[in-house]
């Protein structure tokens, strides 16, 4: 049973800390163009325009005032805490800011407007919508080709925020042909800081499902991503990995497109990186690939994923452990030949360790590994699994506070018994389960509130543990008594 990434679309938890950032606000002070004598903060003190004054200036004709007001707006929006995005939107100045993007006569005005719009678009979906409805998309795309690098960089950033908002805007950008000018910015000469921004925006263009990005767009982006994956900067690599992880998070056809680029060995290499921000997305990408077909999974195995997973299963970060175990569970859902590779690559010892003392989320995934393994493995492979000591930690996990996991474990135990029956070792397994305190736990689960859990536990007890002599479980009588021996003949056809 291969399990895709998203099972429940409702989340109770905090947004995941390990996810890539969806939108970013520009609050940096890296502008050499501004008068070098003035620090940003002091500049704030100097230009103190009220909101009314801003509206007036922006809507006026004086370029200098327009610039001052736009700059003031941008500064308000770049405040560290709680930028008043709503208030700015309510001023109704967005259309004017969009107009300023086209003011080739004043590079400074173009830049300030792009920055202000970037920060507005970095807010909620509501905020992004205001920017899009202000007509910013075509204007920002034109700016990609600006002769001024800092302007095109700011445009890249703004577009990234828009692309990350939702599939609808992402595809609107693609329809406006954002990709060719964006890709044109990538060259060996591009400064690293700029390249990071481009990579991030590219990753947002790959992001989100329902629907996933158009195939031809993906095919245009992929070669550049592959190039970026070989860059030396960690942020560039990380965001490229995120992009690939989005592209593989979908149906098998999409996985196939990525697999065919031959990038898997590089991703596996990156999975092994010491750098957490690279491991996370690389592992996700590979994890997605092995949700695909047996053949696609085989490609990942051939790329060496099984050699790297032991280290990741033992990683100090719980989320990596969990993701690695999830990946392994999907490989274990494959045919027995792939299960054999799991064994020969030495995955069983770290799996048992993880079951025994991993983080809870990782333990849950590890349980799935064992469940899939026992479903698809041969009797010999299952025997090997039991020999590796999986039973004790597995039985201990019957105490977890999660009904689904308990049920999966009980199903796994039934699988183990089926294998034991084939080997004529039922009795031995019964003793082993009892010895490891599993019997007590299974018996106790007969009182579980969840019906399916209770039935599964009851089933195991009745089938394998009831009665100590040879008590037979005899079934009840069938239909009414046909006691007088007689029967009507009919035509038979088997």
């Amino acid at each position, binding site marked *: 049973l291969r399990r895709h990434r998203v099972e429940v679309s409702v989340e*109770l*938890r905090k947004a995941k800390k390990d996810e890539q950032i969806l939108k970013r606000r520009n609050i940096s002070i890296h502008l050499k163009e501004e008068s070098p004598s003035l620090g940003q903060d002091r500049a704030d003190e100097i230009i103190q325009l009220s909101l009314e004054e801003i509206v007036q200036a922006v809507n006026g004709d004086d370029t200098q005032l327009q610039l001052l007001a736009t700059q003031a707006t941008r500064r308000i929006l770049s405040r560290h805490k709680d930028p008043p995005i709503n208030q700015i939107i309510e001023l109704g100045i967005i259309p004017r800011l969009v107009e300023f993007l086209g003011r080739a006569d004043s590079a400074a005005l173009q830049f300030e407007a792009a920055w202000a719009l970037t920060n507005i678009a970095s807010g909620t979906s509501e905020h992004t919508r205001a920017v899009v409805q202000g007509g910013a998309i075509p204007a920002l795309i034109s700016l990609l080709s600006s002769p001024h690098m800092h302007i095109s960089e700011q445009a890249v950033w703004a577009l990234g925020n828009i692309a990350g908002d939702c599939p609808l805007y992402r595809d609107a950008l693609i329809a406006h042909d954002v990709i060719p000018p964006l890709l044109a910015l990538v060259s060996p000469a591009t400064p690293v800081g700029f390249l990071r921004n481009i990579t991030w925006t590219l990753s947002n263009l790959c992001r989100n499902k329902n629907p996933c990005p158009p195939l031809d767009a993906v095919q245009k982006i992929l070669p550049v991503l592959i190039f970026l994956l070989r860059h030396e900067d960690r942020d560039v690599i990380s965001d490229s990995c995120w992009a690939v992880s989005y592209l593989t998070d979908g149906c098998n056809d999409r996985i196939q497109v990525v697999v065919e680029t031959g990038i898997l060995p590089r991703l596996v290499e990156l999975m092994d990186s010491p750098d957490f921000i690279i491991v996370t997305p690389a592992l996700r990408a590979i994890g997605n690939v092995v949700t695909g077909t047996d053949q696609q999974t085989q490609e990942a195995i051939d790329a060496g994923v099984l050699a790297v997973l032991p280290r990741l299963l033992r990683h100090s970060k719980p989320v990596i452990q969990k993701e690695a175990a999830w990946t392994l569970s999907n490989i274990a859902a494959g045919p027995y030949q792939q299960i054999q590779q799991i064994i020969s690559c030495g995955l069983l010892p770290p799996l048992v360790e993880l079951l025994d003392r991993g983080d809870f989320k990782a333990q849950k995934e590890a349980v799935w590994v064992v469940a899939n393994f026992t479903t698809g493995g041969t009797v010999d492979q299952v025997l090997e699994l039991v020999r590796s000591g999986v039973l004790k930690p597995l039985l201990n996990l019957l105490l977890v506070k999660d009904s689904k996991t308990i049920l999966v474990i009980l199903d796994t135990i039934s699988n183990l018994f089926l294998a034991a029956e084939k080997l004529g070792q039922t009795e031995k397994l019964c003793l082993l389960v009892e*010895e490891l305190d599993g019997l007590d736990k299974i018996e106790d689960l007969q009182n579980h509130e969840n019906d399916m859990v209770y039935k599964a536990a009851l089933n195991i007890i009745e089938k394998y543990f009831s009665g*100590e002599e040879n008590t037979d479980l005899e079934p009840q009588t069938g239909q009414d008594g046909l006691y007088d*021996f007689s029967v009507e003949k009919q035509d038979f*056809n*088997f």
Partner: protein
Amino acid sequence: MELSDANLQTLTEYLKKTLDPDPAIRRPAEKFLESVEGSQNYPLLLLTLLEKSQENVIKVCASVTFKNYIKRNWRIVEDEPNKICESDRIAIKANIVPLMLSSPEQIQKQLSDAISIIGREDFPQKWPELLTEMVNRFQSGDFHVINGVLRTAHSLFKRYRHEFKSNELWTEIKLVLDAFALPLTNLFKATIELCSTHANDASALKVLFSSLILIAKLFYSLNFQDLPEFFEDNMETWMTNFHSLLTLDNKLLQTDDEEEAGLLELLKSQICDNAALYAQKYDEEFQPYLPRFVTAIWNLLVTTGQEVKYDLLVSNAIQFLASVCERPHYKHLFEDQNTLTSICEKVIVPNMEFRAADEEAFEDNSEEYIRRDLEGSDIDTRRRAACDLVRGLCKFFEGPVTGIFSGYVNSMLQEYAKNPSVNWKHKDAAIYLVTSLASKAQTQKHGITQANELVNLTEFFVNHIQPDLKSATVNEFPVLKADGIKYIMIFRNQVPKEQLLLSIPLLINHLQAESIVVHTYAAHALERLFTMRGTNNATLITAAEMAPFVEVLLTNLFKALTLPGSSENEYIMKAIMRSFSLLQESIIPYIPSVITQLTQKLLAVSKNPSKPHFNHYLFESICLSIRITCKANPEAVGSFEEALFLVFTEILQNDVQEFIPYVFQVMSLLLEMHKNEIPSSYMALFPHLLQPVLWERTGNIPPLVRLLQAYLERGASTIASAAADKIPGLLGVFQKLIASKANDHQGFYLLNSIIEHMPPESVDQYRKQIFILLFQRLQNSKTTKFIKSFLVFINLYCVRYGALALQEIFDSIQPKMFGMVLEKIIIPEIQKVSGQVEKKICAVGITKILTECPPMMDTEYTKLWIPLLQALIGLFELPEDDTIPDEEHFIDIEDTPGYQTAFSQLAFAGRKEHDPVGQMVNNPRIHLAQSLHKLSTACPGRVLSMLSTSLNAEALQYLQGYLQAASVSLL
């Protein structure tokens, strides 16, 4: 029904009548209420009554009736009519919450239950205002109201603890969290503040603490599925307060009751659960708080007394520590030698002590004590929790922990030695400590299977266990005696055999102890020792080694059954059975006395069978007596019949249902002991065995089939001559069984015996009917089990009546039937047959079809000859096909209404495996080769040409092997 005073009056009358003890008044009233409950306004009338009736009993009665009405009718089942009209539903939902909150507690509980039943169906979609309505009441400041709300919320939300994750469930939880989490947190803080302002007001505190318990429970439910964002953000508030509540004490909340847990204990228990939940599931986020909780819980344990009311709290708290100390990243919290010592000293040792309550149970409630101590149904006890903590600590600190405890054990033993009669409990604790330290893994069957190597078990046994058991006074220090016996029992695989042999007379001696626990343990220990296996799978302790003790063992075992409280002691009876089985012919001299005692026991318990295990072993012991004696002297069967038939007759006449299956099995055993013609006493019973009423009881079927088989084996010709009119009835039983998927195999057992033993002419007229019946089942509801049995039967038939007879009878039922069965059933399914004898029957039968059935050679059936031969070779050479179609996997389980105790198979009444073709054919492969040889001699060239043109190469190779082995060749 209108909402009128008249109707209220009528309803009041009827409700009153439902409380009447006289069923003649009560039943019609209940019937009446049921008949009107479908009417509109009925539930509203009940609500009116429970609010406004003048009489309190009517209020309560109305509330109970209302709740049951909701339970039965609220759910709307698909394709069934809606049983409550929409306007009533709306009115109920609009009124029930305020009504519940303003009612006295007795009624509040009923309404609260009703709300949760309604909530289960309607909440949240069809009852959106419920949450806001509840949350608004938090501000009321009235804790009677608030607790009502909290209780209702608890019953609505507690299912989050066990349901599977799903979009629907999580959407609901999210909705609840959005509306409920913040007000609950505020209420929690406010309640805690109120607790300190009312710190001196006992009655206020009670109400407030009830709220806190409910709040803590709600916390558990809301946090169960995943860690909600809100609670992660507010962890500081919750955990800081939980932590300080754990350390809180207030004299006003302490209760005098020693048994029942008070509010303070309940609250702290729940907080331990909450902390354990976080520690297990949200370790990453909870880590900063965990050390504080470890310290607080540990202090709690150190300061909590021995009273029973603290048991749940203490065992929860210890389990929390046990689960944390096993985690590698918390190892450091425990590894300091001082910490370990103080956990051992202050937490583990005190909770292993034998308490007054244990002593009471030991003396007055022995059965319960034994069940807990011996069978491990002690999950929630302090001792068990302390043991788990020892095991948990041993994961990382086995050496230091063993060292610390060795010191304790020694000092406790010294205390004991100073003054045994006062300090015997110290020794008890010492033994318990050694046991829990040494045992790493355990099973009922083998005792301890993995022991701590740092503990010298034999030395402890010789120095501290044996001396107690050697003491001349068996009734002194019964608890220590029981401990010692238990030690032998569980460490039987660790203690060397010579020590076990030395212990046997001591155990036999303790069968005489007055204490029920002591003589029960002695019996159980002997029984376990007798099942131990040595080399070659023989018993470890041999009959020869037991020879000096036979008489005293049997005497003491039977005497133990006369001790007060042990007249139906299953452990003793099991030990009797096991002793017989071990001692075999050396019990023969004692049989006359033994069988008298067993029969008397049987007579006594058959008046009122209440101990199924005892009874089972009683019958097993009877079977063993018969077997062992008759093996040496077959003539003795008569004396057993004489001794037993009187009791059996009584059991059958009084229809003692529990015992009837056993009686049939013992009778089968007795009947099979007869070498000559069946005695007339058995024949007189024969017609009665065919009575439908007996066959309606599931538990009777296997032993009755077994008994009828014994009749057929020993008395087929007598039945044919003297009871021919009963043959249709016999076949009727077969038909009854074959009609059921569950019992068809039993029907086949019976049929096989009929075909094998009855003279052919006596069943001639029924044969065609039999096959029609089987074909019918095959056509209408075939299962793998049926097909397997069917294949064995037709081949047995073929062996008995010949292949030609089989073909003729098939084709007389329907033209070309024989070919169809070969092609559709035998050839494709024969691989599924399992069991050595069964396979052999099929092999011989098929060989006959191949070689002794002319139509196979010269009609259209000839085309099936090679496929049939190939299938036969497959049966010989291929692994058994054990695949079962998916839809069949659960037949047995779903058809079983639960554990059937009605039939308990007696191991020692077992039937010997019977091989009907044993004498005829020894090696079925050689038999095939010889038969083929014969056939090829009769029609030279044909066989060879068929083989060479169509048999596949592999099969041919096997066949050549058979021919070589048989030293024949084909012509």
